[in-house]
């Protein structure tokens, strides 16, 4: 029973990491940047969701509101910050680290602005359905209706995203610009617009991850939530496990990481909560540096 519990907790957490990892992968594919501000964007979207819940009273309205808000904000970041960055900081010794530094700066700006607007105290989003575990044969599982719901929503979103990428012209443009931007441009794809779209999709995915991470925990969140830093690190690690270039890899990486952390916490020590992701990342980088899915050797970007 404990084994099943651990597995189910891991899968739920992992599906949230997977969403975050997808956000990383979408941004990486469109602009070759690891967006360290992703957690800040997810946090901002969660505040959008909070506003929607408290005004309109429904989590199911808040979710799309947060997604749209997150998408618009991410598109804005790409349009302003990323394009300026390409224009100004693409030469000299700073060039290699400029995107990392700029997105970290953005993370700081977002956090400070959020604290200024909403204050530093904990806010709370009430889960739409119960987070009390299912009861089977008199024994209570940790797996709850809420966790089931999260899984279902994540799966639905993944199916939608896959359909977008595989079955539509837009998806074809997204894939073409990721793999061969020059050729895509020659074939008439508006690569710049597609890049912005990639960021917007990432913003939406991050928004869902942020909301679910909040309600899957105790429902509280604040600008300084360690939960969001953890989401940043976990999403990044999941994306790296998956090869940073593959959506399927991101999902597998997220699930793998979620289950691995869950088992470490249950069977080794719950005090390893913060250090476990780092150790798992190091192991992955040493044992299989190209990721589960990736084929290109080495981690040199």
């Amino acid at each position, binding site marked *: 029973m404990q084994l099943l519990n651990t597995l189910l907790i891991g899968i739920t957490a992992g599906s949230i990491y997977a969403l975050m990892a997808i956000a990383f992968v979408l941004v990486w594919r469109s602009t070759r940047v690891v967006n360290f501000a992703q957690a800040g964007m997810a946090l901002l979207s969660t505040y959008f969701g909070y506003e929607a819940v408290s005004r309109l009273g429904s989590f199911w309205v808040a979710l799309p509101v947060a997604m749209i808000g997150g998408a618009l904000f991410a598109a804005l970041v790409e349009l302003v910050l990323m394009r300026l960055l390409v224009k100004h900081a693409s030469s000299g010794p700073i060039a290699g680290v400029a995107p990392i530094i700029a997105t970290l700066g953005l993370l*700081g700006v977002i956090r400070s602005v959020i604290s200024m607007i909403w204050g530093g105290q904990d806010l709370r989003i009430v889960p739409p359905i119960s987070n009390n575990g299912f009861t089977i044969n008199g024994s209570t599982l940790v797996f709850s209706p809420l966790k089931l719901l999260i899984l279902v929503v994540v799966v639905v979103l993944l199916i939608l995203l896959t359909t977008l990428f595989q079955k539509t012209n837009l998806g074809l443009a997204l894939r073409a610009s990721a793999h061969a931007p020059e050729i895509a441009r020659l074939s008439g794809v508006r690569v710049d617009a597609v890049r912005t779209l990639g960021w917007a999709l990432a913003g939406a995915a991050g928004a869902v991850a942020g909301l679910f991470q909040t309600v899957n925990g105790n429902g509280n969140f604040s600008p300084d939530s360690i939960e969001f830093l953890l989401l940043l690190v976990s999403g990044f690690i999941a994306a790296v496990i998956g090869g940073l270039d593959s959506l399927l890899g991101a999902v597998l990486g997220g699930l793998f990481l979620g289950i691995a952390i869950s088992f470490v916490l249950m069977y080794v020590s719950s005090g390893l909560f913060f250090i476990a992701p780092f150790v798992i990342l190091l192991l992955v980088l040493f044992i299989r540096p190209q990721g589960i899915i990736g084929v290109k050797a080495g981690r040199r970007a």
Partner: protein
Amino acid sequence: MHKSKKESTHIPLFILGGVVLYFLSGFVDELRVYQGASIAVYVIAISSIILLTGYSGQVSLGHGALMAVGAYAAAVLRVEFNVPIILCFVAAVLAAAVGGSLLGAAAARLSGPYLAGTTLALAIGLPSLANQFSILGGEQGLAFDVGFPPLALGEEFTQYKWFFWIAALAALISMWSVRNILNSAYGRSWRAGRGNEVAAQLAGINTARSKVLAFTVSAGIAGLAGALLAMTIGTVSPSAFPLTLSFSLLTGAVLAGITTLGGVIIGAVVLVAIPEIADVVAHRLGSSESVTTNLPGLIVSGLLILTVLFVPNGPVEQHRARKAKHEAAHAGSKKNDKH
């Protein structure tokens, strides 16, 4: 090997700097002395980032954690074994350097965003380990007391002034060492590896080993900065080394100019001045408490973005490039006149 006069070791210059600081510390009030000590700590920490990122081309978001390693090493020795203070600082350097060499061994296989993400995970993970071992004092942390200033310095000599002296001396020594390391064969091999790794390998440089070495040296310097930081606040605890510390150091390094060691003082002064400037601005605007408390963070991050966008290689380097361009244009027009 060719050695120009400019690359000499500059010992007299650093001694002169020390003498100036010595007299300066007599004229300013306590708060300024304390800020002076903070600036000295930041100078050391930022120079470790410049060495690593500017010269060796590796990004670390985990230098806050390495500072914590140094600080804890010094404090444990002080509290548990009552080791002389100077040896505590040496131990801080060594402990952080060992940690850095392990991290560097992993880092040498990574680059760019992968390295940044890995060190970020470390920065978040490592401080929480302090709660796992009782010798490290958990959330409260450990006291780190360097003791009273020697009586020989007189009754008037305050504790903060003593901190400032220690930190300033350490800063002078480390700046001098970093400068000379960067101008040595090691520094050149780091720059070569950053510029073009394949070319550096062809020239016979073992780039992997040189990266690990850069990480080790940088970590040792960060460890010293960590122990000094712990000295100025009197304790070592996980909350003294938050993620924002690592980000601040990066901001300082970018403000200084990522390859301009001489610029560290700009970065350090700005970092120490920002809270005070923010305070004045918030007062002027009569803003609410939540704005006041978050303004420094906003300014640090905002400056980071603006600098990367508009002065990407630092103010000093920017000025130098503009001057060189101007001179080149000047020389060009002269040449044209002759025709």
